[in-house]
């Protein structure tokens, strides 16, 4: 039983739940809650993106596109056409999944940098459409979004959102961990390492890549929709290439093929600009230096590199003890 608790699955989930439950003790005011909510939303996107990049070994430099489509889909349907937000969210998510499914098939035939280019291009196209079609999207100035309401209950205020996003983050982590531990997840990891090796044991690599692409798009879209309702406003900046890069950076920073890494990456890189806020002229330089430094000294990302360090430390300890005995 104890061993079960210590497994990364159960133990990690419990630890994350504990962090979410205890964090309000140090969140002094609604500004802190606000940053925490943003961390949660980014973490959800990163968990999905990590399935694609970290586990399946594909890359996407266009995920802000899916995030943005989620945000704008909800914004337009709920605010402009008065749909109930939940219906708008579901319809948007479905549409984004469908889009990912349709474009994913040709795009995912590409490899490496070509795939990077294609996804980047996809993101740019989505961005251009959103910032040009101002009749629907409000153009570069953005669009206001009504608060999220289910039935008579209105989700408003950072504190309520904190718990909602916290719960959703737990669910997202749980889903991702489940998927990775399933035959499908093993298939994804297998094709990351050797596509031909995976194919000859009966895995349809193209189908799996497409599936995980769609899943990651859905994670991004849902987080986008929620984020739009939470902030009450969306601008094309959330769809831009730089936001895609930001997301990939969070994933890599936290650690590829580590679901908790994605959460840590999102947490660090979302709060860092807040810490650097008073040094606006140095912010970009420091941010860049942090990225380079982390990648050089912790090339696997923060969580896996530290876990490895911790493990080797522990096994060295164990060796020492064994030697003494």
């Amino acid at each position, binding site marked *: 039983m104890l061993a079960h608790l210590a497994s990364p699955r159960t133990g990690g989930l419990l630890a994350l739940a504990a962090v979410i439950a205890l964090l309000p003790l140090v969140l002094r005011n609604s*500004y802190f809650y606000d940053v925490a909510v*943003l961390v949660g939303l980014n973490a959800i996107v990163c968990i999905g993106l990590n399935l694609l990049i970290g586990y399946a070994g594909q890359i996407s430099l266009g995920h802000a596109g899916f995030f943005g489509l989620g945000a704008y889909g909800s914004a337009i349907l709920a605010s402009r056409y008065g749909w109930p937000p939940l219906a708008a969210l579901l319809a948007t998510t479905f549409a984004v999944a469908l889009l990912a499914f349709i474009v994913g098939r040709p795009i995912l035939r590409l490899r490496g940098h070509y795939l990077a280019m294609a996804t980047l291009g996809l993101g740019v196209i989505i961005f251009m459409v959103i*910032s040009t079609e101002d009749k629907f999207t409000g153009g*570069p100035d953005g669009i206001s979004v009504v608060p999220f309401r289910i039935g008579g209950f209105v989700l408003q205020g950072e504190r309520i959102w904190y718990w909602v996003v916290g719960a959703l983050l737990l669910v997202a982590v749980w889903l991702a961990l489940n998927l990775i531990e399933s035959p499908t997840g093993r298939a994804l990891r297998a094709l990351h390492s050797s596509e031909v090796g995976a194919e000859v044991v009966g895995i349809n690599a193209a189908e799996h890549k497409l599936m995980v692409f769609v899943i990651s798009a859905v994670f991004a879209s849902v987080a986008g929709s929620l984020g739009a309702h939470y*902030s009450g406003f*969306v601008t094309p900046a959330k769809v831009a290439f730089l936001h895609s890069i930001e997301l990939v950076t969070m994933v890599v920073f936290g650690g590829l093929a580590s679901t908790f890494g994605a959460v840590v990456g999102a947490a660090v890189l979302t709060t860092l600009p807040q810490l650097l*806020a008073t040094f*606006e002229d140095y912010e970009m330089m420091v941010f860049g230096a942090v990225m380079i430094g982390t990648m050089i000294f912790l090339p696997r990302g923060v969580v896996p590199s530290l876990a490895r360090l911790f493990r080797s430390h522990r096994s060295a300890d164990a060796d020492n003890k064994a030697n003494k005995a």
Partner: protein
Amino acid sequence: MKSTLAKNSFKRGFAAAAAAFALISGPALAQEPIKIGAFLSVTGPASFLGDPEQKTLELYVDKINAAGGVLGRKLKLVSYDSAGDAEKARTFAKRLIDQDKVDVIVGGSTTGETMAVIPLVEAAQIPFISLAGAVVITEPVKKWVFKTPQSDRMACEKIFVDMQSRKLSKIALISGNGAFDKSMRAQCMDVAKNYGIQIVADETYGAGDTDMTAQLTKIKNTAGVQAVLNAGFGAGPAIVTKNYRQVGITLPFYQSHGVASKEYIKLSGGAAEGVRLPAGALLVADGLPANDPQRAVLVAYKHEYESHYKSDVATFGGHAWDGLMLAVDAIKKAGGTDKAKVRDAIEATHGFVGIDGVFNMSPTDHMGLNLSAFRMLEIKGGDWTLVK
């Protein structure tokens, strides 16, 4: 910049020491500073707005403090760089309200940032003076939201009035795909018919584009065009201006108030000669007649800014001057920092002579400027001149 940083942290240390001292020596020195919050696009694509705005705020907060502060209290500027990102702006606004507990917010260099923040300031009930241009900010009127710059609709109107007087009725529009450009383009299309103006060509270029001859060639080959209007800021209009001469268009050429800084003339080289644009009077401050109500204010600001920063003054910094001074004026009138009273005082502003014009706020007008705030300028001999 480094010096300000050092200064800031020095000031912070000083403030802390002062606060500690105040605890010992009693209420006489316990005057809390008045906190002015700001979020500006100091970096990023709109830094041409945010940078002079930030510099202006820093300069004048120091100046006011040196002169004894407001109501015997020092001003304290808390400023963040929102880099043109609405999401960042929203979070920083939250930080200003909840964490820094500022008394009034001045800022939002761009419309997107401003609009993202409005729900927050309305909910927190804190006076907010935006430095962005679009009409949507103050139309419809929001209780706690004001703005200082002339709106883009006024820019269009000013241009169209000038076109009317020159009997130009068919025009081509070329604009960037940024927020400022698109908003102005939409406003111009909206009000064009009121002035009998017909827009016969409508071209766009992207941020970072290096050449607009394709769009201008298209305009050149559009039948009946009598004038061209370019809405945009930054490198775009400079490239458009150069390409305009390159493809050999000789029609009257108008720019927007987005290029109202010396930089534009420099960047375009000789190509900017003869270009007209609407702008605040700041650019021609020294050339204004002595009886112009704004002259004294403009000349003082211009010289203060230019001697302190050793760079040309831009109208955008003026927005921040107006924002800060309107707030200070209102705090004085309200006799303190009670938010509701300050708000009411801002709304009651009348005959306030600012950089962007003479402000007359009212419950139905939270900008308080009319078309006279814009002057029609023409570039002659590499400098601004007042038309007529």
